């Protein structure tokens, strides 16, 4: 075990955040009671109840959709595009001003390290609003026809892994293109969406343009199935995506899906091993592995397998697991007891099927939901840990000998969201990325995101793109061409 320096605790203060004892729904510019039985949201690092949050029923969702429709027809649709853009710029600035508050709240509610919520989630969320703000009055240049129109009311359901960032990915393009929104945040991580609702008020965004209806699966279903929703956007599991695609079948609703993944991260023998190891760590342990595009299948060229695995294990031994609010923390808490159970179950299946489990010596806190960084070696492509999305800090290592074999193994998945390629040879990067059936390919890097860069999957990882000019298509009814 690598000798770690003793770091003094460096916790971020939570005093910047006022967590209210209870929250309502945000409908038509007001916080209102929900008709459902309220739910509790907990800090997954301590199991402390943070707050009680309203649960929206069909009737609440109906109210929100009506508000969104009214706002679309009376205010947001007719508004000068430049003014719509200015509202988005305002929101971007407010997110930047309140960045620390959002980061602390996100880490409290989600369990992710403050280092990531502070340096990735919140700045990227602001960047998404900033980027899309500029599109609002330039849509005729976006390549979706000369007079592209919004769909109307967008119903959006987002996951718990990047609560604020996924909100930004959904809300910013919807608003920039002139749609209004009913957003259903994840059951376990509603708090930053509710703080965002407050930001909408602070920005004087007209009532009804953004509505936030909290709740669990039933609330999401009500949003997706509401007859007056024109566009549905979902990020989450392939299983739920499938049921949503069934639910909108035969309707006029436009649908985009960002679903699961099982990304191959391919390391050739000429790759700079130290950099590759950093990339592998970033690929699978970023956000506790709660990342749909996580590099969860490591494909290593056989002749460097032992070297890569040894170096990887040495590096993993230095990762600090623990208090998400500590600025030294690399890996925070698993988001929920349910998710922890799934990670444990799949890991046990991994061992039962004959793969070899390795975990560093690492002290985990007594309370909260924790899972140490884990590497499985001797994995075969048929093993469930090589096929199923674990959505946790669990890496499966497979080997290959030739580029053809690497491509075949990488593409041997029902998913096709992302992939990684590590090699010093430029022509090989281009040849391999050409042949990978995945929507995002990171070469000699991993898990990079930017609002100008479209993101989305092939195959059962979903359809539609988010970000960039291509991402706008989801929110526009293109006239012609």
């Amino acid at each position: 075990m690598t000798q770690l320096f003793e770091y003094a605790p460096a916790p971020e203060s939570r005093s910047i955040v006022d967590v209210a004892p209870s929250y309502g729904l945000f409908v038509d510019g007001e916080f209102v009671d929900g008709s459902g039985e309220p739910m509790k949201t907990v800090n997954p690092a301590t199991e402390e109840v943070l707050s009680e949050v309203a649960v929206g029923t069909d009737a609440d969702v109906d109210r929100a959709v009506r508000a969104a429709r009214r706002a679309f027809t009376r205010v947001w649709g007719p508004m000068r595009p430049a003014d719509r853009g200015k509202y988005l710029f305002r929101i971007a600035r407010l997110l930047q001003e309140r960045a620390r508050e959002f980061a602390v709240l996100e880490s409290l509610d989600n369990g992710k390290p403050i280092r990531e919520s502070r340096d990735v989630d919140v700045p990227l969320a602001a960047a998404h609003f900033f980027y899309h703000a500029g599109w609002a009055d330039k849509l005729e240049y976006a390549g979706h026809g000369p007079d592209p129109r919004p769909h109307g009311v967008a119903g959006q359901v987002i996951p718990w892994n990047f609560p604020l960032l996924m909100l930004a990915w959904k809300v910013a393009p919807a608003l920039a293109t002139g749609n209004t929104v009913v957003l259903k945040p994840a059951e376990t991580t509603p708090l930053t969406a509710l703080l965002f609702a407050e930001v909408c008020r602070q920005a004087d965004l007209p009532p009804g343009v953004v509505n936030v209806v909290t709740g669990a699966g039933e609330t999401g279903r009500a949003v997706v199935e509401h007859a007056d929703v024109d566009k549905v956007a979902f990020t989450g599991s392939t299983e739920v995506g499938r049921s949503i695609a069934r639910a909108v079948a035969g309707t006029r609703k436009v649908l985009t899906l960002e679903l699961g993944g099982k990304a191959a991260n391919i390391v050739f023998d000429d790759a700079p091993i130290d950099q590759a190891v950093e990339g592998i760590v970033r690929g699978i342990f970023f956000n506790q592995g709660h990342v749909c595009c996580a590099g969860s299948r490591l494909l290593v060229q056989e002749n460097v397998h032992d070297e890569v695995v040894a170096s990887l294990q040495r590096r993993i031994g230095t990762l600090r697991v623990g208090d998400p609010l500590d600025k030294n923390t690399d890996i925070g808490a698993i988001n929920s007891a349910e998710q922890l159970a799934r990670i444990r179950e799949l890991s046990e299946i991994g061992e039962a099927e004959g793969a070899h489990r390795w975990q560093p010596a690492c002290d985990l806190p007594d309370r909260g939901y924790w899972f140490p960084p884990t590497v499985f070696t001797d994995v075969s492509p048929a093993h469930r840990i090589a096929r199923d999305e674990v959505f946790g800090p669990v890496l499966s290592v497979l080997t290959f000998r030739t580029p053809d074999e690497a491509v075949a193994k990488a593409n041997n998945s029902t998913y096709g969201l992302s992939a990684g390629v590590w090699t010093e040879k430029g022509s090989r990067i281009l040849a391999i990325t050409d042949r990978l059936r995945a929507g995002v390919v990171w070469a000699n890097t991993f898990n990079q995101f930017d609002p100008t860069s479209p993101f989305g999957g092939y195959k059962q990882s979903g359809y539609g793109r988010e970000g960039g000019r291509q991402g706008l298509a989801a929110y526009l009814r293109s006239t012609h061409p």
Partner: protein
Amino acid sequence: MSERLAVRKTFKLYLGGAFPRSESGRTYAVTDHRGGFLANAAHASRKDARDAVVAARAAFGTWSRATAYNRGQVLYRVAEVMEGRHAQFCEEVAAGEGLSAGRARAAVDAAVDRWVWYAGWTDKLAAVLGSANPVAGPFFDFSLPEPTGVVAVLAPQRSSLLGLVSVLAPVLASGNTAVVVTSRERPLPAVTLGEVLATSDVPGGVVNLLTGDAAELGPWLAEHDDVDAVDLTGAPPAQAMELERLAAGSIKRVLRPPAEEPDWSADPGLSRMTPFLETKTVWHPKGV
């Protein structure tokens, strides 16, 4: 003088570059718009549809990785060969759709021209739909459109040639391979198009034509795990919703049917290509 006895035709499927009979042995009589006998067509079965998917999947690698320049030339060649069969197409379109000679000729002209139009798109899609993304960091980051894979097409029921070309050519131009269920009542222009394709440098399996019943074959294709996308343009209206639901099982891309069969002479824009394209984004660090 005794009249020459006509040679009656029994057509077969076009599948994997060959012309097999239906595995089921079934055929059905094709009549003109007044009910007069025209020919016998193969009545494709579920097994034929599955064979067609296998052929389309096998051809996908070659076709999708051919250069755009090459694909464009092959598609242009289809137009050239179609032009050579102009009279035959006119006759079949007129008989099947009940059009006057002049209107049938206009439809065939438009179909050939439509093919030429799509032939010219192969090497422009990347420039029009792709992008260099100015990300906030030291990265070279670009996005390119790529074909989604095997597309199952339920061809329009009314417009037997122009409609067929309008739904098939965009699938090919964007680099996909196709399994097409032709118009049930008016399959002959599709059969002739198969003969054109077979002699036009289009690799076997890139296009597979199933004469038969969309209502019967549609569910198998919509449900098939190795079909990446489905175009429901010619689906029976009462069945379209069920087909879309079946397609959800494997997260297929779905092009929904229009409320009614559109005016195929209108400029289609990109609307029939983009549903069958993925966007791939590639990141690489910049540094010295």
